[in-house]
């Protein structure tokens, strides 16, 4: 994976801050290094500053403090049209008064490329997204998915090394979105471009990215590969934001190497991996993925075992989602694989559940 062997740094944010109104920082101390050829996704809730970061990179907003470096050079004072960065906008921004062909030829035209070469490049770019036959149409005559493809082709036609995409698939339905995710990823691999991608859809981020930067409140909460982000969230926000998560609040009672014993609010003690909370008496939030909780069968043993009562069962085909009351809380979720021996669970039944201390992470208290 890219981050394990970082290539040369291509884009760097160096202590970047941004404020629109001079009162509130929308981006607070952003440090981020993106390698050449990387697919980096900025993921975060609405208003967390993702678009702002992208706009600063593209040159449409200026950083209030700090440097943005492209290929080692500070670009703060370079106007957008000289940055040579391709960009796909959320609403596509295809020029409505031009045909698809003219839209694609536009970046080549302003670069003074002559007509025959222009046409060849336009057709080449259109064929990348299987839209050759639409060159003569206007944007209004295309479906959303087709417009999206054209916007992608237009951002790529002048062969930029860096392409920014701000929620490019936000307006598409689920099927089309999945198909386009695949196509964008494919183009990225094929062309070797660097992509900075913004989304607030975590599935999209997980399936497409080399690395994901999780944004919240103007800061990067965690920057990691999709697997790391899911398996090893470093703080409670990330654990909560990516995937489903059982949150349990408590206090650290004792520590033994990596493992801490946490006393929950109802008095039960849980063995857990110490991640960002280590000190005895420190408050912590335990994070536990629902699929890492098991029904304890005879002869099995877990470092954490508790009696639970089944409150609700939801049949989801490949697995059964059950809501349990355990350790003094009744919103505990367990995902049970749909195997024949798990069918016997009934609502109201008392069962015994357990999980490994390696799957339970003691994070910050928030």
């Amino acid at each position: 994976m890219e981050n394990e062997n970082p290539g040369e740094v291509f884009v760097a944010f160096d202590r970047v801050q941004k404020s629109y109104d001079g009162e509130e920082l929308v981006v607070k101390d952003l440090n981020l290094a993106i390698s050449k050829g990387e697919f980096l996704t900025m993921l975060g809730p609405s208003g967390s500053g993702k678009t702002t970061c992208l706009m600063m990179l593209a040159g449409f907003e200026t950083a209030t403090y700090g440097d943005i470096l492209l290929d080692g050079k500070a670009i703060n004072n370079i106007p957008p049209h000289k940055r040579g960065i391709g960009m796909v906008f959320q609403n596509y921004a295809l020029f409505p008064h031009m045909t698809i062909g003219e839209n694609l030829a536009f970046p080549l035209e302003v670069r003074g490329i002559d007509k025959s070469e222009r046409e060849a490049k336009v057709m080449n770019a259109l064929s990348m997204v299987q839209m050759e036959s639409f060159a003569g149409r206007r944007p209004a005559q295309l479906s959303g998915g087709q417009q999206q493809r054209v916007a992608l082709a237009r951002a790529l036609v002048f062969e930029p090394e860096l392409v920014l995409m701000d929620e490019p698939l936000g307006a598409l339905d689920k099927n089309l979105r999945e198909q386009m995710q695949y196509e964008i990823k494919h183009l990225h691999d094929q062309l070797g471009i660097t992509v900075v991608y913004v989304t607030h859809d975590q599935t999209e981020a997980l399936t497409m990215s080399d690395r994901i930067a999780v944004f919240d409140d103007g800061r990067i909460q965690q920057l990691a590969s999709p697997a790391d982000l899911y398996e090893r969230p470093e703080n409670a926000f990330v654990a909560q934001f990516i995937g489903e998560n059982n949150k349990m609040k408590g206090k650290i009672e004792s520590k033994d190497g990596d493992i801490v014993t946490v006393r929950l609010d109802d008095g039960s003690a849980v063995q857990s991996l110490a991640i960002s909370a280590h000190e005895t008496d420190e408050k912590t939030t335990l994070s536990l993925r629902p699929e890492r909780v098991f029904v304890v069968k005879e002869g099995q043993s877990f470092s954490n075992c508790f009696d639970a009562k089944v409150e609700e069962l939801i049949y989801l085909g490949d697995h059964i989602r059950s809501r349990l009351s355990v350790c003094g809380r009744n919103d505990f979720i367990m995902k049970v694989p749909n195997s024949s021996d798990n069918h016997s669970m009934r609502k109201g039944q008392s069962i015994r559940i357990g999980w490994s201390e390696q799957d339970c992470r003691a994070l910050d208290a928030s």
Partner: protein
Amino acid sequence: MTQIDGTPNGSDNDHKVNGQMVTVDGTPLKASLKRAERKRTLIAFLLVAPLLTYLLISFIFPIGQMMWRSVDNPQLVSVLPKTLEALQDWDGEGIPDEPVFEALAQELTVASANRTIGRVAVRLNYEISAARGALMRTSRSAEDMEPPYKEAFLDAHRLWNETEFYRIIKREGRPLTASYYVAAFDGTYNEDGEIVMQDENRRIYIDLFIRTFSMSLGITLLTLLLGFPISFLMASLPMRKANLLMIFVLLPFWTSLLVRTTSWIVLLQQQGVINELLIFLGVIGEDGRLGMIYNMTGTIIAMTHILLPFMVLPLYSVMKTIPPSYVRAAKSLGATPWTAFWRIYVPQTLPGIGAGAVLVFIISIGYYITPALVGGQSGQMISNLIAYHMQTSLNWGLAAALGSVLLISVLILYWVYNRLVGADSLKLG
């Protein structure tokens, strides 16, 4: 209109009689659909009926009236029918024969008695000056005339000795006339009854039409030049500031036309604020005072001000709908700010430019009050002359013809605009 699909597939309501779709109670589907449609049409009609009636009474009917007046020519036909009939045999050369004068004497006597002669006299006076005097004088003495009438007429007034006069009477002795239109285009009839241009020094209307159109064009361009940047600014400002600016733009709408015009006079006249200021600053000398009012400049300045909102409003409303992402996209694709503006932004404002320009142009073509107040001689427009003919010379036929020419040229211009930018407004980009 949407066609309702009459085949609900496989539902219990699927009724068919003789291969025809019917509703549950057995009426044919088509008929019941039509009934529902008819009700909707009726409601729609009732909703617009008041406006339609109002427009009919206040707009369509008067315009029809005006256009009718520009060709209507009832005076001679109604007062001198026998004379006109007798004139049919006249070959147009020399002086007509006795029967014409006999009929004339008879009809003039009647017309003089019931005072219809005035209408004929005024009508003929449009065509040839002195006709009014000739007819009024002759009609008073017609009662006492003795045969041979021809001699009596020839003695009564010098006009009766001119072949031209009889030609005019014969020509205008038809219920419809083209002579108002001929006059509106500075034409006249020569001895052979052909339409020719007036003498150079008697031409008024064509020049005035040209002046009206070029002034309107100039005003349109000025409003565009002044209105585009302000609309652009307003479209990019936050709502609150944009509204404040909008108030300044709309101020002309909120002050009375007379107040505004008067303040222009105060500002622009020879002894006005601007001239005094320029003299004070030493830009011009005491004898170099600028004439900025009571001439074309005054009309253009004042009308540009008054019509500016008509340009700004459509421009602003179009610009507000253009998301900033287009220009951003253009820049990210490598276009300089100017290229992005000119190639991407401006073409998208074309519908607004078109709407604003057509509005301003059409309004200024027919503008009356401002040129009348601040236009002086050289700032008069065609509508001022139309008003003159309606109020002073009372030549309503000519006024109607001039008005119709104006109306028709506006319609033609609108048609041309529609052909060029209307349907396909984006092509011009």
